[in-house]
């Protein structure tokens, strides 16, 4: 079923995602819950002939659905889908850039303030655009009558030569740049000011009044998320979809949508301007003359210069037919075709701060619980019988350390620390969720790829900086001398440049293009730089897989790829993934892509390894999710030279690469909650392989790949085994990757609230007990409303097989409320491990657990996991390389040639001079005699 659709209705597949019915958990491309909005509208493009009859050109019936329209949260991504629209011609690279309107027949999706009613129809003036450019048309397309002036549905006032120039401009305003024909579509800000921004040319001219709303941009920042104005593509079947990010006033104050200010999503399928070239009803000066008609009418009646779904990244309005482009979305012919979707925002994220100014109770830790606590906290602070708490996102190891050393009242974590807590704490499960490898990939047909399969070995390859990325770097590996400290890197000379060129990846994901454009992101997976239980679990999963472990130990994969020597034999799992590539070479400069680089400047720069720049992990998981959502590459190779006042190069700046163009490829480690909230695609991870690891596979047969969903997470949680030492359930990764675990999603993790049962200040014990009891009951109700469990979490209920989890959390709540130092035991038969275990549990080394049968379980992380104060600030850093680099070759042609040439000149001139003189003398003498 899925295959067939993938072949046939490629774009529609984008939207055929995910989510089992009635479940909270994200992706499994089966079907989606019914969209909350469906609207249909018929639209026709019909020109008006001189005799008053109509000439219908195109007629469509467009149906729009929107996945969620109520209880929206700021920056939430919804899916907007449509059928029946005119197929897009001249498709651009990215639907969200400032020049994305340069497409033919796009579908414009935008967010507007206000509701659309008969009495008060919505106007373009309250619709948000990314840039002021998207609100003006000043180009003289060969005629004084651009299509908007011939628009038969426009009012006579809007068909004049100059539209949108206010009469009350201050006298100081320089209007010399305003030339007819021009149309400016003002933007009106929210109440109470309702400031009107006129997008006049010379926008920095402050004397003309407000021109650019504070959140609009003139020049887009390639490394920042774009605004939500979307010019999306429709496929040949008339179907299309857009991932639309709704933004409340928390993000966009200039638009000002909120729980109380109604807003709409406006979908405008561009059909083209319906022309009225004769303009019989207009005053004579607004009627096109014969010459205007000759040039203007064909422009107005244009039907596109490109073929259907032809990819054409354009930069100029002259390359397309403006009448069918997105640039005139505000013209009446287009505006009347709009389908308005009323949306309602839920309580804002800062509701608690507004509702109650008292200090919240801070709970530190796991980003995996962020989405859940966002919904839970509003239910707590608005209820006077509860209390106000705040989830402070922090790496779990730091949060665990803060419990001991900094007096934190509660921590959220998934993995117990390597050594037992020196104080009495109870770890009560509050949610079942996990991590995902989220991705944004354009497949060979240009559609959103939805079927990514990854093996632990592929993840190991991506994480260990083993893809050279650049052919120059790969050649430098080949040139390494045997006596060099980097001799081991020579083996990497045969590694594929990126995962998309890896035969293992190609066998599993044949529809992903092998594109050189996205080589920076297809050679790595964006990971966390800090300490995190997510990285610990991910590395434990990789470590447990025999194939991946053998490869990490130095064994070649069946195609000959080897691990980066910096990671060879790395001991896993680790709380913090280190950057261990140290390769620098005189043959490859990491500053190679730097424009304006001078040899003198380059000589002053220390050579740095290239691959850590490509990997560039970030500090938190939400940032990774954002970067995956917009395919913002974090590879810090965007080099620019810095100059001092006298324009002398003084240094360089290595910035992130930023937004990618088509075809995009982006992988990142995210939480399941973030992936669901942002509707990211999540990779199916290999749970079991029956194929011998030396086989050169050509397809996915013999391997099971599991999407995160309710069933697969439920299956995985069966391998969470009660552990007497730590009083928690431990994930048994060796079982998860075995045949028994074939149906389980290996990224599944429980999240525990770790709370001291002694010495909590004030009434925090009672309050936290209330939170635990809530998490064990009402908090597990799936839904999008305040207090419910959002998608991305498997409800922790007895129905789902978590009866013992719920029971233990309730017992833990009692202990937290009592504050007597008692810790309820998970395994009653182990009395020796009772409550305060300061020194008793000598065998605490196994506390981290996880990689059971692997050779590394005895060598648990020595960095960042000690429950001492030092752990809170010690993300393990990459080791200092033995040598900072190589001596650059510095030579001078001037030095080589100045003196030899001077000597040569001296000799030559002396010789020539003497000979000339001698010859002259002889000739003179001969003539004289």
């Amino acid at each position: 079923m899925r295959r067939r659709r993938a072949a046939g209705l490629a774009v529609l597949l984008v939207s055929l995602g995910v989510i089992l019915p009635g479940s909270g958990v994200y992706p499994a491309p089966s079907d989606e819950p019914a969209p909350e909005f469906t609207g249909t509208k018929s639209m026709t493009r019909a020109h008006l002939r001189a005799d008053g009859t109509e000439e219908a050109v195109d007629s469509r019936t467009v149906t729009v659905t929107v996945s969620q329209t109520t209880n929206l949260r700021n920056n939430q991504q919804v899916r907007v889908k449509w059928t029946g629209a005119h197929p897009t011609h001249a498709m651009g690279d990215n639907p969200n850039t400032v020049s994305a309107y340069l497409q033919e027949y796009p579908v414009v999706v935008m967010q507007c303030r206000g509701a659309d009613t008969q009495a008060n129809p919505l106007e373009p003036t309250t619709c948000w655009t990314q840039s002021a450019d998207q609100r003006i048309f000043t180009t003289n397309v060969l005629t004084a009558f651009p299509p908007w002036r011939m628009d038969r549905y426009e009012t006579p006032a809007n068909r004049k030569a100059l539209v949108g120039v206010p009469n009350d401009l201050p006298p100081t305003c320089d209007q010399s740049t305003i030339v007819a024909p021009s149309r400016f579509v003002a933007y009106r800000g929210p109440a109470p000011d309702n400031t009107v921004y006129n997008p006049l040319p010379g926008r920095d001219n402050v004397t003309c009044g407000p021109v650019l709303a504070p959140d609009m941009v003139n020049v887009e920042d390639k490394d920042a998320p774009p605004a939500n104005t979307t010019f999306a593509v429709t496929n040949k079947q008339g179907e299309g979809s857009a991932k639309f990010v709704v933004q409340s006033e928390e993000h966009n104050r200039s638009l000002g949508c909120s729980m109380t200010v109604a807003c709409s999503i406006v979908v405008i399928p561009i059909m083209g301007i319906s022309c009225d070239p004769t303009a019989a009803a207009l005053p004579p000066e607004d009627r096109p003359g014969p010459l205007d008609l000759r040039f203007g009418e064909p422009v107005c009646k244009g039907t596109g210069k490109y073929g259907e779904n032809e990819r054409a990244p354009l930069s100029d309005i002259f390359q397309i037919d403006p009448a069918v482009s997105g640039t005139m979305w505000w013209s009446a012919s287009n505006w009347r075709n709009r389908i308005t979707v009323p949306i309602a925002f839920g309580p804002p994220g800062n509701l608690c701060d507004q509702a109650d100014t008292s200090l919240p109770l801070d709970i530190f830790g796991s980003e995996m619980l962020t989405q859940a606590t966002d919904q839970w906290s509003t239910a707590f602070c608005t209820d006077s019988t509860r209390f106000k708490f705040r989830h402070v996102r922090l790496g779990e190891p730091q949060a665990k350390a803060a419990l001991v050393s900094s007096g934190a009242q509660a921590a959220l974590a998934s993995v117990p620390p390597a050594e037992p807590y020196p104080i009495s704490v109870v770890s009560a499960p509050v949610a079942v969720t996990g991590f995902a490898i989220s991705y944004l990939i354009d497949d060979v047909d240009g559609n959103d790829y939805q079927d990514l399969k990854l093996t632990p070995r592929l993840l190991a390859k991506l994480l260990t900086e083993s893809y050279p990325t650049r052919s120059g770097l790969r050649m430098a590996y080949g040139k390494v001398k045997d006596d060099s400290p980097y001799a081991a890197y020579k083996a990497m000379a045969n590694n594929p440049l990126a995962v998309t060129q890896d035969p293992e990846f190609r066998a599993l994901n044949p529809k992903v293009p092998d594109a050189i454009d996205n080589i920076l992101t297809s050679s790595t997976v964006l990971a966390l730089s800090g300490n995190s239980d997510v990285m610990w679990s991910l590395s434990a999963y990789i470590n447990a897989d025999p194939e991946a472990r053998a490869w990490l130990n130095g064994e070649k994969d069946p195609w000959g790829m080897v691990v980066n020597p910096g990671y060879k034999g790395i001991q896993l799992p680790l709380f913090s993934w280190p950057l261990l590539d140290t390769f620098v070479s005189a043959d490859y400069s990491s500053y190679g892509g730097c424009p304006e680089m001078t040899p003198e400047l380059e000589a002053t720069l220390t050579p740095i390894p290239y691959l850590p720049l490509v990997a560039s992990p970030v500090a938190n998981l939400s940032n990774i999710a954002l970067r995956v959502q917009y395919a913002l590459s974090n590879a810090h190779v965007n080099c620019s030279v810095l100059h001092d006042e006298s324009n002398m190069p003084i240094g360089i700046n290595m910035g992130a690469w930023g937004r990618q163009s088509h075809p995009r490829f982006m992988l990142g480690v995210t939480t399941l909650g973030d992936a669901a909230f942002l509707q990211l695609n999540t990779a199916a991870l290999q749970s079991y392989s029956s194929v011998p690891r030396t086989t050169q596979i050509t397809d996915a047969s013999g391997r099971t790949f599991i999407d995160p969903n309710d069933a697969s997470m439920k299956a995985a949680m069966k391998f969470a085994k009660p552990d007497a030492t730590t009083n928690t359930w431990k994930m048994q990764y060796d079982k998860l990757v075995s045949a028994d675990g074939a149906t389980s999603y290996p990224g599944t993790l429980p999240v525990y609230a770790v709370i001291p049962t002694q010495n909590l200040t004030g009434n925090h014990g009672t309050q936290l007990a209330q939170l635990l009891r809530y998490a064990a009951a009402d908090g597990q109700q799936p839904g999008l409303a305040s207090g419910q469990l959002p998608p991305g979490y498997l409800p922790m209920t007895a129905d789902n097989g978590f009866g013992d989890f719920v029971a233990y959390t309730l017992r833990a709540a009692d202990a937290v409320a009592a504050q007597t130092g008692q810790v309820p035991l998970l395994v009653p038969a182990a009395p020796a491990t009772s409550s305060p275990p300061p020194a008793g549990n000598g065998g605490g080394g196994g506390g981290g657990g996880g990689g059971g049968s692997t050779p590394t379980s005895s060598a648990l992380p020595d960095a960042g996991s000690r429950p001492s104060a030092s752990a809170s600030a010690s993300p393990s850093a990459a080791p200092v390389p033995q040598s900072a680099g190589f001596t650059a070759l510095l030579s001078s042609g001037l030095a080589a040639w100045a003196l030899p040439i001077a000597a040569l000149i001296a000799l030559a001139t002396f010789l020539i001079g003497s000979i000339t003189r001698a010859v002259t003398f002889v000739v003179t003498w001969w003539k004289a005699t």
Partner: protein
Amino acid sequence: MTATLVDLDDDDLDDDDDDELDEPVKLAKLPVPPAITIIVRSLMTLAVVSGWLVIYTLGVSSVQQSRTQQQLYNGFREKVALATAPLGGDIPAGTPVAVLEAPAIGLRQVVVEGTTSGVMRDGPGHRRDTALPGQPGTSVIYGHAAAFGGPFRRITSLAEGDKITVTTGLGIFQYEVQGVRRANAPLPARLASGGSRLTMATAEADGWRSGWAPTNVVYVDAVLKGETTLGPPGRPTSVTVAERAMQADPDALVPLVFWLQASLAATLGLTWARVRWGGLQTWFVGVPVLLACLWGTVETLAEFLPNLV
């Protein structure tokens, strides 16, 4: 007859023969076209200038340099004795800052602050954006390999373990050579906190260029054996392009223009003088003037050579 020929070789005396015409003069003058005369004399002038450039750079300048060294040494000795030698901060270019001694190769040079070609006429130059010798960090000293006495001509024969003594206003520091470092060799290991390294840079070449037209930069690293001493802060953090290795000093253009103008003026003046005074007198006065102009021009021209040559 012979006199006339000699005159032709050397100066414009033949023009003079217009007044009193007699037989032999006519014989010599008649067939020599003025174009030939001009070409020959221009070529000869060029030969003299470029020949002198080579001779000056490789030979004469070393005499000049050793004299300057002597003066610098005397001055620096006194300053060290009086404890007024510069210790740090922003030291004006050309100030002597250290005495560098490497007994293994018979090197004893006064190091001056700054590394432009102009400054390094006087001796090895200390790069201004590096620490002074004996202070924590790496000190970089550039030295000519061939020109201006080639003080660093032989530093590449320093072997690991050789001693280098540096005397500055802060004391006497013993460095131990780690080795010679050429292109593509690994950089020295990162300096331990508080350590001090001395890196000497000069140029070298193989083959026929060896010894007089060195092309490639070569480094000699040495580490301090003993304690570092802190100096006053305020060292410059960057240097101009002309102060980097193997760079010429474009600022020498200004003096060069002046010297060329002076040469032109001298030539015009002497021509005038020759008409008024006669040949012998003009020569008597003119030769020292012309020589001075030639010296000055070539000395300035030498600043356009890279600072490590």
